């Protein structure tokens, strides 16, 4: 109730005084958000559920907590963090898709458990697990198959991360062409969508993809 009254008086004074400072506005709002704290489960439980050692969990958590002291990442934060690795391009769309993939319970925020579960699958999972996760990332509406539109969105977001200054110069139809070649490779029965089985099967047959998947073995 008290919070409500304070909000009410705040908004009243905001109406009367047109020159209310934008700065204090957002400060009030931020204050409301940051009091929400989230503590992860105990390290033992996480160790059972994921394939990380205690030390690795410690390192991961320290990094996580430093960037998000309140224990959860919201999408804005997520995008900001991710964009620091790609200074030249616009990584917000891809970060959005990643966020959707990490946020398994769809509550709009990624907690440390979500974060660590996702990382465990990608970095310590079997090939099938990893391919599954990748498929989940691509399948935007989680209906079990990837359509050309979904793939096009993903492709555009990846190309957006490159930014403007590339060699050769980025043409507008390159993402679409790339989607076409992807579908040619993956879509076995040519029905215009790629299902999970087609995806896993095609990836397993492709040498370069298998080789690339080895990359994740020693990231941490």
């Amino acid at each position, binding site marked *: 109730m008290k919070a409500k009254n304070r909000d009410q008086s705040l908004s009243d004074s905001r109406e009367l005084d047109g020159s209310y400072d934008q700065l204090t506005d957002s400060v009030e709002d931020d204050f409301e958000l940051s009091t929400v704290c989230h503590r992860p489960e105990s390290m033992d439980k996480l160790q059972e559920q994921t394939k990380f050692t205690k030390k690795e969990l410690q390192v991961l958590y*320290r990094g996580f907590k430093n960037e998000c002291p309140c224990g959860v990442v919201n999408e804005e934060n997520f995008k900001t963090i991710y964009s620091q*690795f790609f200074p030249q391009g616009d990584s917000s769309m891809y970060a959005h*898709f990643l966020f959707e993939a990490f946020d398994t319970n769809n509550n709009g925020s990624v907690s440390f458990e979500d974060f660590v579960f*996702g990382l465990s699958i990608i970095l310590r999972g079997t090939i099938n697990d990893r391919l599954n996760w990748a498929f989940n990332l691509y399948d935007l509406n989680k209906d079990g198959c990837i359509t050309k539109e979904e793939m096009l969105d*993903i492709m555009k977001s*990846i190309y957006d991360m490159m930014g403007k*200054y590339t060699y050769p*110069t980025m043409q507008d139809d390159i993402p679409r062409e790339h989607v076409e070649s992807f579908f040619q490779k993956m879509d076995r029965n040519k029905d215009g969508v790629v299902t999970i089985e087609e995806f896993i099967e095609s990836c397993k047959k492709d040498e370069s993809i298998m080789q690339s998947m080895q990359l994740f073995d020693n*990231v941490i």
Partner: protein
Amino acid sequence: MATGVSAWLPFARAAAIGWMPVANCPMPVAPMDNSKRKDELIILNVSGHRFQTWRTTLDRYPDTLLGSSEKDFFYNEEIKEYFFDRDPDAFRSILNFYRTGKLHYPRQQCITAYDEELIFFGIIPEIIGDCCYEEYKDRKRENLERLQDDQEENKDMKLPNMTFRETMWRAFENPHTSTMALVFYYVTGFFIAISVLTNVVETVPCGSTANQKDMPCGERYTVAFFCMDTACVMIFTVEYLLRLFAAPSRYRFMRSVMSIIDVVAILPYYIGLVMSNNEDVSGAFVTLRVFRVFRIFKFSRHSQGLRILGYTLKSCASELGFLLFSLTMAIIIFATVMFYAEKGSSSSKFTSIPASFWYTIVTMTTLGYGDMVPKTIAGKIFGSICSLSGVLVIALPVPVIVSNFSRIYHQNQRADKRRAQKKARLARIRISKSGSVNAFLHSKRNGLLNELLELTDTEEDEQKLTKSTSLLESQHHHLLNCLEKTTAHAFVDEQMYEQNCLETTLQTYPSRSPSISSHDSSAGTCCCRRVKRNTPLPSSHPIPTYQGPLQELSAIHIQFGDPPSHTASRSNLNRKTDESGRLNSKGSRITTAIISLPCPPALTPASDSLRRAPQKRSPLGSGHPAAPSIQTTTSSAGTNIIKVSAL
């Protein structure tokens, strides 16, 4: 390297799983984490105070002293600590910067001492968080001004080589610079006073002569007053003309307020001379004399206070307007009420509402002349309400104006300051950001070379070549490399991009010197901006100034002859064809990587002469020795361009 989020690098690399199935070619090999160093605690001994932190905390900012290998210089083997002989109090906030990513300025620290600490530890002050940045800048500015005040005492000495005109203008603006200026200042002030006095005395009745009644002095001693007036106007005209001559920008001077006042002050006299004794206009002429009172405003050149007052009124115009408006409202309301209240009484002075205005104004400002008084009871009641509210209505806006003036004045000062700071801040942060991109491009070349050497099995050379990039950096670069692979496009920086732009517009030229003609003929392409930048280059420093504002002195173009095809050199898609070209150029490339910036102009003329021999030189002239060679790097002849970042 992305600062502050290095702990999230594993996550970013894991997120690359989304690119794998999409990529058409295999990803490059990831850098091995050979060190396998456990995350250990480091002890930093600062003048006896021991600070402990994780190694990875310090590694977050690799371009500072503590984050790079520079701290090894301070490692003490006996005590197994990093010892710094610096101020531990300032070090506290510096270490907190590594921990939290925000740099705070401790208020009790001296500004110069803090600055020195920041410079020592390699941290740029622009990173100071918003909470402390204003304080930091204020203190810094104060300090600077204090130092400047000491220097300014010498400034008033006459600078050599000032033209006569500039000297005169300076004398007009700062009367205390020379004796002549001071004399002129006082003389004009004296004459302004005389002139105003004459105008006033002119109208005083002078005593009657024998045959006529009292008349003003002006009509009695017409000649004397006329002479006085003429003398004053002479002086003012001469002064105005001198100022006009000396002004650096005559147009701006003529538009300024002071010159308008000058003109208005002397104009009535001349108009009076011109229209001598025409009866019809003499009435208008008399009113013109009123403008002579404007001469008193000329005093504002002599008085700082008047100028400030003028500025106040101008800046508080809206508040004054509000005051006027609220007064008008109140006047109208009360006048109406009084009129209708006094309507009944006979012989009332309140004949109409406008007639009641006078009563309302006089009452509200608490003047109370008493020439109009209400007679009815209702009138008296409303009259008293009127006088009470008058006090309020007048008393309320005035402090608002005063405080507004104070606020507006200070706010303007601070806003300008902040805006200037912000631009510089953002520019420097942008520079350090672009530095990270350069680091990636640089290490990409390094990485290609390493891979090549791995293929050719030259172990000892590999050791020589590998620069000590941190594991974090190499992992980050590998990540960006993967993205390049996935999209089959390569990261380049702004200049290469524009060069490529230039190249693609000239695809039709088959000859070896397409870029030379492009230098002459290109206009309106996306690269014409860059062409314009090339032309005013002085011949002595072609490289540094070419780079453009953001890059500053951070990249050098070196080129080599006899390359394989252009596209292959850019990406390592066809690694085999690169080999021969790279083997030839390997040796010279290493030396250029070590060269620091002053040397490159010595280097490029050598390569210039290599390049330019087969090409026509005449169209360019000797004004651009290095510029065309840089441009020809993208010619279809296919030069192998390698950029070296001199970070």
